[in-house]
């Protein structure tokens, strides 16, 4: 069984991202200006992908906290809830590997070692996530110079690259879910979690 957060990623986020694919296809043909228009869509697609993945990761964190704290005294629960979620990096920042490790680390997880131990491709997916965050920042802040080294001096992202990032997110999401579930069960017992 999957977390509610993963279900939301698989259904709602997928539908929203598929609409960007449709928008890209709708600008068909070879008319002048098409390349400029598709570049705008590619950039929008990448930023939307990053924001939906951020939402998934933030949701998964919230869901995990609620499961971890489900059995504690209701008078103490808001205090601990606050300690685990206030000032969370995923509330403000990208779902980059550092932010994910920091936020899930607050729950007592060794996040990336746990995720990477689940599949041999996950370390490469982690690297792609880092690169996606750099593209996202360059696009959102229109600061390609600041990310020039990571982006190889490029200012345009291609549709296959965005799909490559999306595949990395799709590949990582179920392993995030599994790693967090395993952690919850290790902490509160084998019947914990989803």
């Amino acid at each position, binding site marked *: 069984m999957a977390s509610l957060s993963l279900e939301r990623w698989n259904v709602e986020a997928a539908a929203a991202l598929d609409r960007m694919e449709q928008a890209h296809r709708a600008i068909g043909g070879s008319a002048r200006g098409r390349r400029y228009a598709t570049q705008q869509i590619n950039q929008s697609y990448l930023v939307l992908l990053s924001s939906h993945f951020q939402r998934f990761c933030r949701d998964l964190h919230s869901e995990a906290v*609620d*499961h971890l704290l489900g059995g504690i005294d209701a008078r103490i629960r*808001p205090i601990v809830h606050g300690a685990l979620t206030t000032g969370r990096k995923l509330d403000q920042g990208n779902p980059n590997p550092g932010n994910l490790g920091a936020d899930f680390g607050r729950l007592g997880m060794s996040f990336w070692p746990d995720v990477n131990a689940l599949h041999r491709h996950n370390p490469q997916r982690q690297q792609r996530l880092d690169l996606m965050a750099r593209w996202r920042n360059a696009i959102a802040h229109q600061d390609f110079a600041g990310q020039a080294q990571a982006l190889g001096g490029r200012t345009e992202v291609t549709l296959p690259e965005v799909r490559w990032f999306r595949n990395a997110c799709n590949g990582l999401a179920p392993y995030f879910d599994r790693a967090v579930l395993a952690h919850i069960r290790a902490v509160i017992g084998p019947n914990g979690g989803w």
Partner: protein
Amino acid sequence: MGVSAVIARLYKVGDRVRFQLGAHKVEGTVVEDRGLIGLDGRQLVRVEVPLDATYVQEFELPAALLEPARRNRARLS
């Protein structure tokens, strides 16, 4: 139909709520509906609470731990 489709949202953004924080009841405003992603598909919300005149803290909490503040109760009655 998923669990989230049959469980009601208890609060919406802008609602005034109260909850027990340690030895005190505090009052705040719902600033974000996080959706039906809590334990058993229950609603989670973020509540902004002015802890004193200079400091506002946000708490992400299960809606089940909250109760409507007086203004909401008056509106509902």
